[in-house]
């Protein structure tokens, strides 16, 4: 446990000045600010539509969520998996890392957990900023109806789904970035995978859920709406989430075997 903890502290210490770390903060800040600015500056076009609170929140948070779920999230995860490993490839530091008196599992798990944490921070900020900026918009444009509905549960549920559904991609990309030191191979495979995921998810292919890359997009589809129920209230643990978690676990274990057999040439 101790070696896992110190490996994790070291991961943070090493990367706190890198783009990978700041991307987790900048990405939500930039995207949420842009969307909110859009809602602020074009309030004269949105107000005549007379959305009730729930619909306004759905439109507003959907603007961020849809872009995230479809495109940015898979690429962000691919980038995280890449950069956590690339810091060692680039500096040729695998050899010193593995020559430290720490067990290999800790070193590997700390890297993985760190990537998970960064994704978590990023999505948490997305949810929090969407929530906060929504109420800020209400203050700036008093005619908006953001105050009529509390989106907390909806935001927590959707971002939790997005988070859990992306772990499958993370574990898979993590192995690719661990094995290959170059940027193009994991990125290329990730890119093709993501496009495949988007296509299969939007075509509603029945086996789309078997492709890790399509899971974030699938997870965000609102499939069943109970009559008379809140359309924004939905189940978190669906088939996509289970699939993602299974993929995440399996690839995580495979990754460990790759690490433990890794010869440092």
């Amino acid at each position, binding site marked *: 446990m101790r070696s896992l903890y110190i490996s994790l502290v070291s991961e943070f*210490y090493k990367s706190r000045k890198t783009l990978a770390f700041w991307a987790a903060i900048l990405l939500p800040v930039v995207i949420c600010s842009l969307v909110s600015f859009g809602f602020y500056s074009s309030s004269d076009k949105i107000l005549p539509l007379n959305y009730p609170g729930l619909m306004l929140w759905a439109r507003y948070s959907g603007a961020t969520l849809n872009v995230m779920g479809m495109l940015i999230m898979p690429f962000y995860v691919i980038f995280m998996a890449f950069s956590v490993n690339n810091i060692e490839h680039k500096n040729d530091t695998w050899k010193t890392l593995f020559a430290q008196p720490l067990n290999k599992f800790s070193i590997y798990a700390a890297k993985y957990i760190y990537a998970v944490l960064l994704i978590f921070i990023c999505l948490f900020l997305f949810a929090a900023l969407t929530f906060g900026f929504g109420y800020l918009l209400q203050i700036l444009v008093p005619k908006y109806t953001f105050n009529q509905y509390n989106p907390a549960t909806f935001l927590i549920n959707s971002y939790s789904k997005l988070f859990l559904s992306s772990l499958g991609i993370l574990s898979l990309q993590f192995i690719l970035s661990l094995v290959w030191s170059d940027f193009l191979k994991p990125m290329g495979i990730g890119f093709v995978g993501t496009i495949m995921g988007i296509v299969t998810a939007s075509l509603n292919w029945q086996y789309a859920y078997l492709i890790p890359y399509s899971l974030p997009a699938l997870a965000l589809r609102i499939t069943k709406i109970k009559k008379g129920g809140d359309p924004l209230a939905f189940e978190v643990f669906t088939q996509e989430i289970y699939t993602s978690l299974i993929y995440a676990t399996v690839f995580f274990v495979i990754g460990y075997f790759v690490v433990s057999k890794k010869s440092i040439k």
Partner: protein
Amino acid sequence: MSNFAIETVGLNFNFGNQTIVKDLSLQVPKGSIYGFLGPNGAGKTTTIKILLNLLQSPPDQVFLFGKEINRNRIATLKRVGALVEQPAIYGHLTGKENLINRCILLGIKKSKADEMLALVGLKEAANKKSTKYSLGMKQRLGIALALVSDPELLLLDEPTNGLDPNGIIEVRNLMIDLATNHNKTILVSSHLLAEIERTATHVGIINKGQLLFQGTIDELHLLSKPMLEIDVDKTGEAAAFLRQSGYEITDQTAKKIIIPFVSTKVSGTVNTLLIQNGFTVSSLYQQRKDLENLFLDITKNN
């Protein structure tokens, strides 16, 4: 307890079909500075990586402090500091941050970082990004990183690579200080014999993965038999004369004759003999066979 800090027993290592290390039996006594010599590509770095368990060795072939390495990886690594090939440094961090990161990993006080920077003379550059370091500075930071845990055994892979003469002398003195005053064992690899000759107490010579010589530096010196070089006129006649008088001629050039050195007395006799027979001897001196040549001889013949 074993008296060897490092002991390998018939170590073999292959990359695929390619044999890198063959039947290598290193014995590095505690407290020694062991010069690990060999030309480029001889298997030095591979051996050092095996000693760090970065490359998996077959079971029961590698022992550090008397313990089998694969079964005691963490306990062994706690006692070892290493500099392998190019120093592994995070370029986006400063020299000090690199050391602090290592302190975090080792669970030791961060104040150690400043101490190490002072030791290797990088105090002024402590807060400079290490990508901006010169090769020599990187090498010194690498040594600092190896030393930060105060290890009993240091594995230094060509530590003077890229250093200027001053830096080389500093590293040399540092190694001697660490071994004599702090009782550390140092294995230092190099492809330059002159480099090792000045510091090492023990020497191992490796070529194409095989150990060709292992022993103390004095034993290595013994291998190089001293010669008597005689600068004389009419070398052809002089050589013929000496041969006639029962001396063995090792080598003969336009200006000098080389015969095996036996004793100063015999050298005197040879001198007298030559002069009495009308030859002019301008100088006569004992010459040790250059170790550099010896090294080349040993490595060439295999």
